[in-house]
């Protein structure tokens, strides 16, 4: 059994979901995504036994392109992240009633398929295809099932699409250029390529443009908050939980090993930029009125830190970044879900219109609180492991980076607690607020359980990703 099975299950899931009719769609999608999760667990098991789960077949001879998937620890970790979060996200949407649910869930499944492919692909061209492919479903999800004024939403979504598309096209140019040099899109061939300093610089920049927009690193982030706000929560979760990680993962998998010298050269600039994003995102988040927007900016701050970790080019940096990616994936999904739950009850996302929820719904409050705490990287949560490692790597690069980047723990606490206070605490709200339902509770419990368990015992994940990161580091150094 190789990793194609996961892709096939997800793709099949998308098709079956589409034909299953509006009523059954969500359940079918849940079923298939759960099966995909099971399959990826089996792959993981195989991998741990030392069996190679990669797949490779000739796709085109002219130009020379292979359909090749590589399943090392890093890729598997990200695939697992995707296949874990997808069922959770689908489950979280059970309280919503979407028009045309079959289309919606089919798109969700398709997006999961594309993102999984992105994580697995080891041929640059294939990777690019999956990368772009994941854009289309989210475009439609945000456009058709989003909220707010239709015209503004359309504007935000098309901006998002064009912006990210623009970035990735430059990456495509980079890939074509590399292909001219290497005669292949294969990962190892590209790794082995000897490029001149100028070439590396431009290749690095071409990739950076794509990733900086996707991640996003400031000042390329302007699409983010609006799309997060306008998209339906499921879409926001997919975007923030998984899709951002595509960019970060790609930095580790593609950009750094292909252009290591340029990365070394630009280290300070780019780490600096990423860290500036941390501060910027945090400060902007402080005074947001819209809960989803606030979370979007918090996400901006967090991924800025992760990106900074990636670009330090140290083992700790890369490892911490991957850990933090996973942790952030979970926590942000949880937080957006909390926002969605409030929206389901109060029909508002404006923080000022909330407040006083705690006394009505203790369970929800506790769960939300834990997620908030995880997001501010309280020790004991998985986020702390990642953030600590990343900050340590920043420190190894430069003390100032660590100090400035470290302000995230202050500012993060600042805006998150401020939000929590305004949204949840205070005099009991006049509007009734039902506590979490069973379905909702399950999602929270799973996410929280994951965060706490791996916060105390991250070893399995660390052991899974470390060898592949070391492999990559060999090419970077």
């Amino acid at each position, binding site marked *: 059994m190789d990793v194609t099975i996961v892709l096939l299950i997800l793709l099949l899931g998308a098709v079956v979901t589409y034909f299953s009719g509006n009523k059954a769609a969500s359940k079918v999608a849940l079923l298939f995504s759960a099966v995909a999760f099971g399959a990826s667990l089996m792959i993981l098991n195989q991998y741990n036994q030392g069996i190679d789960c990669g797949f490779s077949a000739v796709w*085109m*001879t*002219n130009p020379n392109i292979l359909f090749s998937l590589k399943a090392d620890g890093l890729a598997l970790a990200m695939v697992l992240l995707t296949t874990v979060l997808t069922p959770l996200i689908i489950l979280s949407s059970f309280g919503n009633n979407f028009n045309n649910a079959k289309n919606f869930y089919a798109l969700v499944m398709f997006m999961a398929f594309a993102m999984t492919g992105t994580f697995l692909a080891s041929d640059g061209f294939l990777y690019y*295809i999956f990368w*772009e492919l994941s854009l289309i479903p989210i475009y439609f999800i945000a456009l*058709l099932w989003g909220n707010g004024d239709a015209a503004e939403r359309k504007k935000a979504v*098309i901006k998002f699409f*064009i912006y990210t*598309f623009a970035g990735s*096209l430059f990456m495509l140019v980079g890939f074509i250029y590399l292909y001219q040099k290497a005669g292949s899109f294969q990962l190892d061939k590209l790794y082995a390529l000897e490029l001149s300093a100028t070439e590396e610089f431009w290749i690095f920049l071409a990739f950076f443009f794509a990733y900086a927009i996707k991640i996003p690193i400031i000042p390329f982030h302007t699409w983010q908050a609006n799309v997060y706000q306008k998209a339906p929560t499921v879409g926001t979760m997919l975007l923030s939980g998984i899709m951002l990680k595509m960019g970060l993962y790609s930095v580790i998998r593609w950009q750094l090993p292909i252009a290591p010298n340029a990365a070394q050269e630009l280290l300070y600039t780019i780490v600096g930029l990423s860290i500036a994003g941390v501060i910027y995102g945090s400060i902007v988040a402080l005074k947001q009125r819209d809960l989803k927007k606030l979370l979007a900016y918090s996400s901006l701050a967090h991924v800025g830190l992760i990106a900074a970790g990636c670009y330090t080019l140290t083992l700790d940096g890369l490892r911490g970044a991957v850990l933090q990616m996973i942790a952030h994936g979970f926590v942000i999904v949880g937080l957006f879900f909390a926002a969605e739950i409030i929206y389901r009850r109060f029909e508002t996302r404006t923080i000022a219109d909330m407040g006083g929820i705690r006394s009505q719904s203790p369970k929800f409050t506790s769960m939300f609180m834990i997620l908030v705490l995880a997001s501010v990287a309280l020790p004991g949560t998985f986020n702390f492991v990642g953030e600590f490692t990343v900050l340590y790597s920043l420190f190894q690069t430069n003390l100032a980076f660590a100090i400035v980047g470290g302000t995230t723990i202050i500012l993060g606490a600042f805006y998150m607690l401020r939000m929590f206070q305004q949204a949840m605490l205070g005099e009991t709200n006049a509007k009734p607020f039902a506590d979490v339902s069973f379905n909702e509770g399950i999602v929270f419990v799973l996410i929280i359980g994951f965060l706490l368990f791996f916060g105390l015992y991250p070893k399995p994940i660390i052991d899974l990703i470390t060898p592949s990161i070391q492999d990559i580091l060999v090419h970077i150094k």
Partner: protein
Amino acid sequence: MSTIIAIAVLGVVCLLAEIFNLRKAIIPITVAGLLAILGMTVTEFNTTESYYNNMIVVNRFTVAFSSLFILLTLFLVTLSHHFYKNRPSKVSDFIAIKIFLLLGAVAMVSFGNLAMFFLGLEILSISLYILAGSKPLSLKSNEAGMKYFLMGSFASGVILFGIALIYGAVASFDMNMIYEASNSAATGDWFYIGVCMITVGMLFKIAAVPFHFWAPDVYEGAPALTTATMSTLAKVVAMATFFKLNMAMNGNMNFAYETVIVIISIFSMTVGNIMALRQNNIKRMLAFSGISHAGFMLMALLNLSNTTGSLFYYVTAYTLAGIAAFAVILYVCNDKDDESITFFNGLGKNNPVMAAVLSASLLSMAGIPIFSGFFAKFFILNQTLQAGYLILVIAGIINSIISVYYYFKVISAMYTKEPNEAKKPVPFEYYVVAVLAIGLNIAIGLFPSCLMDLL
């Protein structure tokens, strides 16, 4: 050769069918005939031969492109059935003209002599003038026909002048002689002036900037099916012919000529895309999009020896997407006076399949992966970069970005806006053509090798 004869016979048969009152049978007969011809052509694939004093050449290039043209005509003829429902007495004429148009098209890619080239070109052009003006009662159609006719004849004159100069330099119209002359140092400058004028004429035919002005007006004014023909068949015929001419006449293209191609390519892409941003008529929008695609296709000329496959792939991808898009446009705008984008509002609700087809074809044109349009662009860009024109590649990239905007404008109109009219049934032919064309488009996207390795 047999292809050409068969097509001519089929055209005459159409005309005869009208005489014998077999009007109903015309389209089925034609479709069947075209299918047979297609089969026949494909079997010729590996032969390389020339007929009648090298008037007609058959090789992989001609067979591949001829097959594509036949396929496109097949689609167009199928669409005709419903499109000309209200003008039953003219069906035979329309179909016959389309078949003869195909004849001209096939002649244009399989010529071995400039006389054949010129006559093929004129058959194609005149057929199109007629088709463009084929709604005599509509002033728009008149205007389109007139504009196209005047400018097309003008371009024909320029091409003819070029041919004359080449004849003056080579003393023959035979392509083999011309090829030799182009590679010999002794050839006089007349030859190059001639090449230059033919180039300009062909640039007009593929609607490259600054010879593109006719395209939007004519596309908009002509009846929709004619626009479909022009934007798919006619455009790629011209492109293929241009490519073939360049191979024969410009084997060792000099740098200045390449520069001209680069500049025109960049301008075509940019002007086409930017102008398309503000269009409200979908045919007009597609005209501009076609101009930008012409710019992309021109890139193939910069790496002549390697790009045949890429070009073929590109034109196939582009035309299949175009046919699919026009099938939907015909369905939506059949009973309307124009083709405003607002008619597409809510198509996603009224008719999800057709909306999906149109979305897919627009995505393909925009170059979004898994649709073949992406691969087409990728292959072309790859070859261009191989030829060392990074600047052109970047211009192409930027233009792809711009193009996304207007393609997505239509897509989002289909899905987000409320329909402004009741649902109407989809004619069977439109449905079949749309699905088939987009299916083929996606299929060649999944298996690009099947076309890339042909040439």
